[in-house]
């Protein structure tokens, strides 16, 4: 058992998989010599050498293209896109090439790729380095999408993503990097497509992702004091999506709140709201409510960014009001 930070868990999970599979390689900007701008890849160059841990130019298309070409010819790859906002620079590779090639070639091409990227706000970086882009990638058929909220999940879901034969976008939250957790020794492998009930409750269900999970938990503790028993689900994996865990919880509690860091329109919670109203509508006692960042670019100033991203206060207040 060792205590790991979220950022250390990234390197821990990658190292576990690179030891297991000598063919696995990784590439990205500043990942080798510098150990990553978020220090998530520290130590990997020393252990695995420059042939397997490669620094690249600032060329996001070339990074994802290299990952795709290597993967389709038998070399599994972990590619880092430094900030998830930069996915916009290489969206063609992700959305048009990596996501679609297996289908377009009737299964001739296999693409074992993990695209790791630092996602989310809270760092006062402004509108181009703070976005939560999970909905950008979730909407593309052919991509799997995971977003861990704890160090242990980082390790386990990293292993699951690497071992998955399909392309996975792995979203590491910038504001969780310093979080700590005890992580057991030995190999840790999780499963994609499994949500987790992180707090049991009976009055309402809160579905949250990544940074929104600890905030939802804290909000649930406050709600308890007000006599509202909230069940909190860490969605963890957007594609595949564990709808059964969510539907099961909603059937029990009869209310659903989603807590999303992404801007309002087309957030993942909208899809879950649609599924819930479609499939367990008669089990609901009230409307499905989405708590999201407003539909604005994220501002830089501390005061403004904190107003924008759902806070514990906002979550608790919204639920209190809508449950009332």
């Amino acid at each position, binding site marked *: 058992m060792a205590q790991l930070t979220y950022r250390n868990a990234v390197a821990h999970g990658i190292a576990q998989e690179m030891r297991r599979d000598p063919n696995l390689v990784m590439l990205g900007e500043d990942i080798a010599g510098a150990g990553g701008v978020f220090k998530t890849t520290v130590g990997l160059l020393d252990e695995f050498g420059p042939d397997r841990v490669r620094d690249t*130019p600032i060329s996001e298309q070339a990074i994802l*293209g290299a990952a795709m070409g290597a*993967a389709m010819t038998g*070399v599994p790859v972990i590619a880092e896109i430094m900030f998830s906002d930069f996915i916009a620079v290489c969206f063609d590779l992700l959305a048009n090439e990596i996501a679609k090639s297996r289908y377009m070639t009737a299964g*001739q091409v296999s693409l074992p790729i993990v695209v790791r990227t630092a996602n989310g706000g809270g760092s006062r970086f402004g509108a181009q380095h703070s976005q939560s882009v999970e909905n950008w990638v979730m909407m593309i058929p052919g991509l799997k999408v995971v977003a861990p909220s704890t160090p242990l999940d980082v390790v386990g879901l990293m292993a699951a993503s690497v071992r998955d*034969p399909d392309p996975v976008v792995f979203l590491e939250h910038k504001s969780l990097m310093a979080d700590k957790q005890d992580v057991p020794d030995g190999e840790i492998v999780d499963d994609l497509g499994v949500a987790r009930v992180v707090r049991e409750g009976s009055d309402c269900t809160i579905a949250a992702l990544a940074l929104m999970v600890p905030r939802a938990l804290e909000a649930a503790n406050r709600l308890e004091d007000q006599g509202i028993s909230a069940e909190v689900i860490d969605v963890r994996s957007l594609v595949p999506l564990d709808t059964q865990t969510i539907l099961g919880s909603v059937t029990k509690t009869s209310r659903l709140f989603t807590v999303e860091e992404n801007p309002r329109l087309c957030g993942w919670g909208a899809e879950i709201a649609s599924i819930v109203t479609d499939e367990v509508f008669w089990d609901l006692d009230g409307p499905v409510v989405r708590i999201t960042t407003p539909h604005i670019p994220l501002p830089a100033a501390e005061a403004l960014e904190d107003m924008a991203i759902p806070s514990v206060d906002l979550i608790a207040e919204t639920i209190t009001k809508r449950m009332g």
Partner: protein
Amino acid sequence: MTSTRARDEGLYDYAHREPRLPAPENRGNDRLDIPIDTRLEMYEAQQLLRQFEKRAYDLFMQNLVKGTSHLSLGQEAIAAGFARAQREGDYTFATYRGHAHTLARGADPGAVLAELLGRENGILKGKGGSMHLTSVEHGMMGSYAIIGAHLTIANGAAWSAQMRGSGQVAVCFFGDGTTNIGAFHEALNMAAIWALPVVFVCENNLWMEYTPIDLITAVPNPAADRAGAYGLERIIVDGNDADAVYETAVRVIDRARRGDGPSLVEAHTYREQGHSRADPAKYRPPAEVEAWKARDPIPMYHERLLRLGVPEGDLSTIQQDVARRVDDATEFAKGGAHPGEEHLMSDVWADGGSAWRN
């Protein structure tokens, strides 16, 4: 300037521009040291590509080929020359104008034609279509329809070959228009710094889509004149001469296989038809079209083989054999069923399915 005034002044009147004629550089000739059997194979390959593309056009006119298709008529020598210089196991990456490259690597013409017809016996079961032809078993790693991306993907295949020490070389074909998109430059830089075993081949057919490439590019030779920026040799070859293409291909592929890094080749050629099926290509100067038709790669090569002593009858036999193969391919394609619903929802994931939730 308003668009009306621009038109009045003839700025967009490309049909009355000076014709751009074939460059004199690096042309093939009878004396190149290429075995006659190799030349006959390239002749046969060019015949197959030509007759196949003409058949594809006919089937389009009969409304059997749907959507769009981008033909390689006039550009066959490049595909034939490079494919002959590649080894089994080498990789090919092509654009949406990829029928010729797919066939040149040995994919079955019937399965390719069936794909154009959207049939279940198509090489992609009808799921990819004309612009995405792929035959991994032949090293044909895909046809890519978004300009630029596949240069970076070819790098990845070359990187993989380099890591595995397999000796494979990736050859990546693209058009002149591709040289102005960012991915082209990202790919060349990465290939150069990693000394990847990859050969980039610009098929410069002088027309982006409907715009002359020289009007929208900072240098006269869109690929070759930029090679120096990446520390690469400036290579131009007559893309209408299979021997010239082959000789250059052998040289740059050997270089890549030896571990000496990438090359960028600019092959000058001409699209004998429009950009795609919808394009009658009336914007081209008639003198330009005529000059290039006079340099049609197949009659030129035919004449060379006669000069080298190949009997006319041998060439006729090749032509007729190819014609039979194309007829057979047509029958095979037309006989295919339309794909059923089981193909609609398959092959999104490695497990064969498309489930995104439980």
